[in-house]
């Protein structure tokens, strides 16, 4: 564990970053020795400053790795059931998977009134994947980072949805689908008309309408991503703060907070799913 609490928190909130450091960059190792890079290099960041200096050309290896792992877990589990799906008496696992699928399908049918074979699988993927990524938060905050530390990895932050990149990646996908289906269903003309002539159907109001509609459009993915990120990040910070307390009162706060997350984790996954369905439903509505 790092020395003082501030370092500890900062340490736990830094991702394992692999990225490109520019030419001439001055690196500092633990002992304070400085080395100057002779050319731009792709490397693992040794501290938060380096990670920040890498700019956009960097990957959060931990976020990506864990989200891929959770996504593959989802695909593997559901594919396993799908392959052996029987219309006779289902087994326990099939029963469970079917209840999830039925739940998502019901929500989609209630909310989405167009006809689109993509929406329901999309909603299922979002719900289960986000749920799995969120549920990594139930692991004790120090467990995985200390294992990673033992393996020589300085930073490790396992919850991909507590990383704004992770949630923005998802909502960007949703955003692209919104744009795609808006244009596909309404046509470019219809979509443009929607952007420029609502809510005030008058040529004079076009700039105002455009501003309003584009703002509304851009708010969708942003709010989607930031809501999930905010909830998960805040929860994570609280877990880290609790971990700073003396060990004999940790469980007294940790346990209720973890129990509270039984509500928060599925709820956030559900909200992300429902809002995605609603946004896509709006994209399909022709005025």
């Amino acid at each position, binding site marked *: 564990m790092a020395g003082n609490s501030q370092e500890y928190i900062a340490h736990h*909130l830094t*991702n394992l*970053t692999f*990225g490109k450091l520019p030419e001439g960059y001055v690196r500092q190792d633990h002992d304070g020795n400085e080395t100057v890079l002779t050319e731009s290099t792709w490397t693992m960041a040794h501290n938060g400053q380096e*990670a*920040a200096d*890498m*700019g*956009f*050309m*960097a*990957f*959060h290896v931990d*976020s*990506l790795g864990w*989200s*891929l792992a959770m*996504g593959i877990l*989802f*695909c593997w589990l*559901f*594919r396993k*059931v*799908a*392959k052996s*799906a*029987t*219309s*006779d008496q*289902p087994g326990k696992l*099939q029963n469970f*998977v*079917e209840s999830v*699928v*039925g739940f998502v*399908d019901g929500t989609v049918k209630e909310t989405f009134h167009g006809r689109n*074979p*993509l929406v*329901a*699988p*999309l909603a*299922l*993927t979002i719900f289960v*994947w986000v749920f799995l990524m969120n549920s990594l938060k139930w692991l004790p905050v120090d467990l995985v980072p200390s294992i990673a530390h033992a393996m020589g990895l300085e930073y490790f932050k396992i919850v*991909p949805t507590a*990383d*704004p*990149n*992770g949630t*923005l*990646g*998802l909502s*960007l*996908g949703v955003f692209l689908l919104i744009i795609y289906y808006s244009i596909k269903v309404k046509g470019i003309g219809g979509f443009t008309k929607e952007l420029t002539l609502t809510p005030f159907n008058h040529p004079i109001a076009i700039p105002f309408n455009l501003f309003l509609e584009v703002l509304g459009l851009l708010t969708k993915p942003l709010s989607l991503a930031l809501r999930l990120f905010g909830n998960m990040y805040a929860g994570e910070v609280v877990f880290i703060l609790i971990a700073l307390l003396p060990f004999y009162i940790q469980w007294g706060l940790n346990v209720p907070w973890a129990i509270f997350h039984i509500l928060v984790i599925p709820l956030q996954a559900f909200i992300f799913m429902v809002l995605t369905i609603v946004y896509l439903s709006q994209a399909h509505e022709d005025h």
Partner: protein
Amino acid sequence: MNMNLTILGQLIAFAIFVWFCMKYVWPPITSAMQEREKKIADGLDAANRAERDLELAQEKAASQLRESKEKAAEIIEQANKRANQIVDEAKDTARAEGDRIVAAAQAEVEQEVNRAKEALRKQVSELAVVGAAKILGKSVDASAHADVLNQLTEEL
């Protein structure tokens, strides 16, 4: 909190997972679910139909049972009637036969009596002749006194 290529990585992973789910996960599971729903609906229908059929069959069985009972009763009644008839007929025949036999026997007895009477008459006349001869001490010519004898015989 650095924004970087992780977004793109996440976006690509998202696209792949959604594609995988849409292609390989969703269709088999939902089709299995729909198939089961259909099976259950069919099963319930069949159960309803079977119940109705059972009711009908029970009704039919009950009515058949009732009918056959009636028929059986009728047959028994007829049989009884017929039996009585036969018994009566037999009684009548027996009675007639008995009467006939009795009559025949009576006739025969009468005949026998007559015959005996006849024979006795004959014997009496002979005895009379023999007796007369004994009394007279000589033989009586039976033929000579035939008319007397005959008269005697008649009187007996």
